């Protein structure tokens, strides 16, 4: 990754429009990604419209406390065929890249920190086993 592209038009406050742009541009990267692309293509074989709407609602709920998303992301991710723990790092790297391209640095950091916590939580829910070390590879 190169340095963040900061234009004078960088978004400096959370809004539904900011979330829409972030989500839409992020998933363009995801779909083009060598690791994540095939996983998402299998999970969402048809129209991406509903998924993008879901993800806009999710981020709206998290960043604007709008209550627009209601779901169970732990269960949804548990059903994704081929999901592996390292993919969360790839997801986070692409998300951070998109944030840095679109958002003013403080706002980018707010989104990034939130995504990191949620990703850690999903990883724990999906991959943590009481009889194995955590994080993976520790001990």
């Amino acid at each position, binding site marked *: 990754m190169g340095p963040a592209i900061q234009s004078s038009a960088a978004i400096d406050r959370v809004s539904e429009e900011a979330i829409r742009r972030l989500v839409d541009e992020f998933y363009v990267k995801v779909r083009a990604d060598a690791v994540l692309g095939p996983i998402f293509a299998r999970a969402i074989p048809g129209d991406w419209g509903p998924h993008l709407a879901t993800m806009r609602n999710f981020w709206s*709920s998290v960043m604007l406390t709008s*209550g627009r998303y209601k779901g169970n992301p*732990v269960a949804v991710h548990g059903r994704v065929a081929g999901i592996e723990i390292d993919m969360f790092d790839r997801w986070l790297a692409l998300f951070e890249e998109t944030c840095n391209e679109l958002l003013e640095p403080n706002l980018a950091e707010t989104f990034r920190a939130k995504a990191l916590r949620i990703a850690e939580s999903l990883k724990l829910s999906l991959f943590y086993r009481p009889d194995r070390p955590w994080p993976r590879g520790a001990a």
Partner: protein
Amino acid sequence: MTFVVNDKCIKCKYMDCVEVCPVDCFYEGENMLVIHPDECIDCGVCEPECPADAIKPDTEPGLEKWLKLNAEYATRWPNITVKRDAPPDAKDWDGVPEKFQKFFSPEPGQGD
């Protein structure tokens, strides 16, 4: 990691949290709510919404007792996703000490 509800919720049960929770992970007892630790995604949206300051991240020290209570009763109590009115005397119980010892009820609430 997860957020947990502690005994500040008891007899206050404002329920502002259930409205904003994106993942519907609150469960309702007779006089308090708990969070299902396996469903919470640690987004933190609920924490500042609680008027009683009863929701904390489990990374804070001393919350093991509450984490255990949340995990146990989340499987026994009904899910709640729609806010109802808080008890009429909720404000009177806000900040009262030792609510767990005196008032905790293991009975389920009505849920949605």
